[in-house]
């Protein structure tokens, strides 16, 4: 399955992890140049990710051992289609958010006490990026734990960046949840190591039997990851944390960080835990996901503040992802369901980042984000609001957008699997999201004659929101090659019902 890496011994793609770490070190020395280093690192990561995607698409999955030490002792990194694709979407969204952040955290003329110094954002973001990339490339469950912990800690620190009481308390809660989640995951890892004597994903997949230890490990690890991925009813920490963080951080958290935990779940359930992940077990995340879709949407409908609305929308949208587990339990729908989840991840990453950036612009422009008082916002921030609208189309799942493709795949998978209630949930979720998105639109696009007091928002911040939204839109037209890339490598392909690789 895994082709020998022609570049073993010189694994250039390890720099997607080392690059941001090096940049973080450089920032410690040259504080004033943080943004420049951050953007440079972003460019390098984007370039490497693109190269890796081309390599994987052409030659299949690749792996390497750091320092030349083989698996049981050394650290093994692996990149298949799923890893490379996640790396790519992280690079794309991360790069655009970095551009936004460079404008957001730029030094102001009059020192604004509410704006945190930029020097803290950049190294933390670099740590986060390195952790995300390392997580996507990890080939064993212990490394995944390490990267998960690093990711969680940097995300918590980023949440507290503004130092406001609300942000600090949200960050503390986030910290507790994050630690609890990782701890639960770690216990599962220990159980598995005790029972099977191995940590590698590939060897676990080969040796795992549905023994009690394996089932307990699956339960512990999944529960920990679901907590970190904010699956209902473990979502309580997400809305305050995502709403209180500075705009670029909210975008990073909602678009990328929660997806990383979901990525691990996908890896475990589909790659390693094949035998233990029964249909009955799969029903639990599925039902919780369905409830999350409805509950999150209803909460978003009654949110008073724009960022809170967007954060609850994240809770709802994450719910869709967990529908993949029961759907994939039906043999015929397995491939479609997997593609649906993957496409949802990337479409939501672009769209949600765009929406959070646009909401950040509203907050800066008007000094508040109370939905009722945002009538006519489009007249002051046309580009941001247009970006919000375009990303909203993808979030609702209307064509042409990545969100539509994902929703279509989910609905067909649900019907194919005979899971009618889940198909109904997907459709109902779309209707509810229309309602909460248009609840804001109908105010923002209203015609008002009186002028708002609106500060100028940096054009880079307006246009980066729109750029991300357009990415979400473009994903509606690029499904075959993107899905083809993600399908390179993962073992599920052997049973996939979807069309062959392009």
């Amino acid at each position, binding site marked *: 399955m895994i082709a020998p890496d022609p570049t073993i011994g010189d694994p250039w793609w390890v720099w997607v992890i080392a690059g941001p770490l090096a940049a973080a070190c450089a920032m410690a020395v040259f504080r004033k140049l943080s943004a420049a280093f951050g953007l440079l690192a972003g460019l390098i990561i984007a370039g490497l990710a693109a190269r890796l995607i081309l390599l994987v698409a052409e030659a299949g999955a690749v792996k390497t051992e750091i320092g030349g030490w083989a698996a049981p002792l050394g650290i093994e990194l692996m990149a298949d289609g799923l890893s490379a694709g996640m790396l790519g979407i992280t690079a794309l969204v991360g790069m655009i958010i970095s551009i936004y952040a460079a404008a957001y955290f730029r030094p102001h003329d009059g020192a604004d006490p509410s704006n945190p110094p930029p020097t803290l954002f950049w190294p933390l973001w670099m740590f986060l990026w390195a952790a995300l990339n390392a997580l996507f490339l990890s080939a064993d469950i212990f490394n995944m734990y390490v990267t998960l912990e690093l990711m969680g800690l940097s995300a918590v620190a980023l949440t507290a960046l503004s130092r406001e009481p609300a942000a600090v308390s949200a960050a503390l809660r986030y910290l507790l949840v994050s630690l609890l989640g990782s701890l639960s995951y770690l216990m599962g890892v220990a159980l598995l190591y005790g029972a099977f004597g191995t940590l590698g994903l590939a060897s676990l997949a080969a040796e795992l039997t549905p023994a009690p230890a394996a089932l307990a490990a699956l339960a512990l690890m999944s529960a920990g990851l679901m907590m970190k991925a904010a699956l209902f009813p473990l979502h309580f920490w997400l809305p305050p944390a995502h709403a209180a963080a500075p705009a670029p951080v909210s975008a990073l958290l909602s678009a990328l960080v929660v997806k990383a935990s979901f990525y691990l779940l996908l890896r475990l359930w589909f790659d390693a835990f094949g035998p233990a992940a029964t249909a009955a077990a799969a029903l639990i995340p599925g039902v919780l996901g369905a409830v999350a879709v409805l509950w999150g949407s209803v909460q978003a409908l009654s949110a008073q503040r724009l960022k809170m609305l967007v954060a609850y929308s994240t809770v709802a949208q994450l719910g869709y992802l967990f529908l993949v587990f029961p759907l994939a339990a039906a043999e015929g729908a397995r491939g479609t369901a997997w*593609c649906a989840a993957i496409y949802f991840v990337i479409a939501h990453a672009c769209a949600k980042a765009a929406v959070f950036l646009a909401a950040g612009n509203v907050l800066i422009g008007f000094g508040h984000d109370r939905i009722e008082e945002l009538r*006519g916002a489009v007249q002051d921030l046309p580009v941001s609001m247009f970006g919000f609208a375009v990303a909203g*189309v993808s979030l*609702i799942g*209307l*064509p*042409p957008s990545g969100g*539509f*493709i994902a*929703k*279509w*795949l989910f*609905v*067909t998978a649900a*019907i*194919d699997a005979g899971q009618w209630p889940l*198909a109904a949930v997907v*459709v109902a979720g*779309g*209707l509810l999201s*229309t309602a909460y998105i*248009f609840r804001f639109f*109908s105010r923002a*696009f*209203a*015609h*008002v004659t009186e002028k708002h007091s609106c500060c100028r928002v940096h054009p880079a911040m307006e246009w980066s929101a729109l750029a991300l939204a357009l990415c979400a839109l473009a994903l509606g*037209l690029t*499904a*075959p090659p993107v*899905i*083809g890339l993600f399908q390179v490598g993962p073992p599920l392909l052997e049973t996939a019902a*979807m*069309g*062959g690789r*392009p």
Partner: protein
Amino acid sequence: MTTFDALMPLLIPLTSLIPGVIIFMLPEERRTVRTALNLGAAGVKLGLVAVMVWGVLHGHVYETRLPLLPGFQLVLAADALSVLLVALSSVLWFVTTLYAVAYLEHAPQSRSRFFGFFSLCVTSTIGIALAGNLITFLIFYEMLTLTTYPLVVHRGTPESMRAGKIYLAYTIGGGALFLAATAWLTVLVGPLDFTQGGMLGGYADRYAGQLRVIFFMLIAGLGVKAALVPLHGWLPQAMIAPAPVSALLHAVAVVKAGAFGIVRVVYDVYGIRFAAELGLLQPLALIAAVTIVYGSVMALLQDDLKKRLAFSTVSQVSYIALGAGILGPLATLGGMVHLVHQGLMKITLFFCAGNLAESTGIHSIRRMAGVGRRLPLTMGAFTLAAFGMIGVPPMAGFISKWYIGLGGVAAGESWVIAVLAASTALNAAYFLPILHLVWFKEPEPPEAGERPQRRGGLEVHWMLLLPPVLTALLALTSGLLAGAYLSPLWWTRLIVAREYQL
């Protein structure tokens, strides 16, 4: 098939998509560039459509296929039925653009936004016409919802925002139903292309029950836009939109998209014979008949001119569904040709209502006494179109009613005659009093909010006058010369011959 033939179905939507995107980016004050772009693009589209009409007649196959999803393609193809709607919408787009440029001359709202969405709306309609399979149809059908919403709420007043909300609730709901039905059908039989004579006949034994349910889900999803009772509630509300939008909505875009979809589903998805075998046609015909009578009765009760016209649309569009609900070539002919006839007549009526409101400030029917003297040409066009709606020979409306009636008798469904007679009587009852007021009553002095007569010059700006006169003449000639080469009736005969393999 030459390269040009393969690109043609893509080029025609692009001639309005690209100008639309450019118009969004044009600054508000670049009026001349915007108008030139609008009219130029509409002209180029007309030219391309003329080539396509010639090509389809001479056996050219116009088809573009783009990969959309693994196993699914976006198919844009021109068969005789698509050409009918494509030709109608490109002609009417041209005249409506002309009208809209003059109509919105002094409006305070953003004209770039208006014309941008206007172009996107036409692009969606063309996409609906050219869609070669159900999923492609679905994509453009949903795009139409999205692109017409900003037009409906263009004025941004509380009433128009409210109308927009109702419009959205209906159409998004219908779209969700249509999506579910399409996904279900696709899971059962795969992404089959539209085929003359239907493509589901072979599945009768296995899925008869499911196919029945799907049929009604599809019709309900389409019935929202086609304003079938009881899904018509949005249409009378949406007439709050500016006159050119109402004209387009009622004649070619939204309402027609729904009716066209019904025709597609009946003839090219199920096939009319198969639909009759499953017993699906009678319920459809019945709903259509109820809608025809109900719409006419409601129209009679309205005093606001645009509201009366809106209810008249509810009634008139259902002739198309009625024609589709009766087995037999004559009824098919009458229903399909009404796609064009209703469009020409209704757009004339809305243009005239717009001119009336614009030049005199009159909105309600009881204030229309004697306006024929002030606006002789406008009201002349109005009269022609109204006679057409009633079905007075030799106007276009007569041709449609005649063939539907003949078809009803031929199929042994004589009750159709009763419906037609009742509707004709009601049509006369709500149009003739208007004509009497307009031509034979003395004008009354203007009330508050109305404008006195202008002295000298044309009755209205020539760009407001030319469109209704032109469309009224088209409605007249397509009735008078119904048997002539390339008349709508002649073209529809071609479709019917192919559909029934005559």
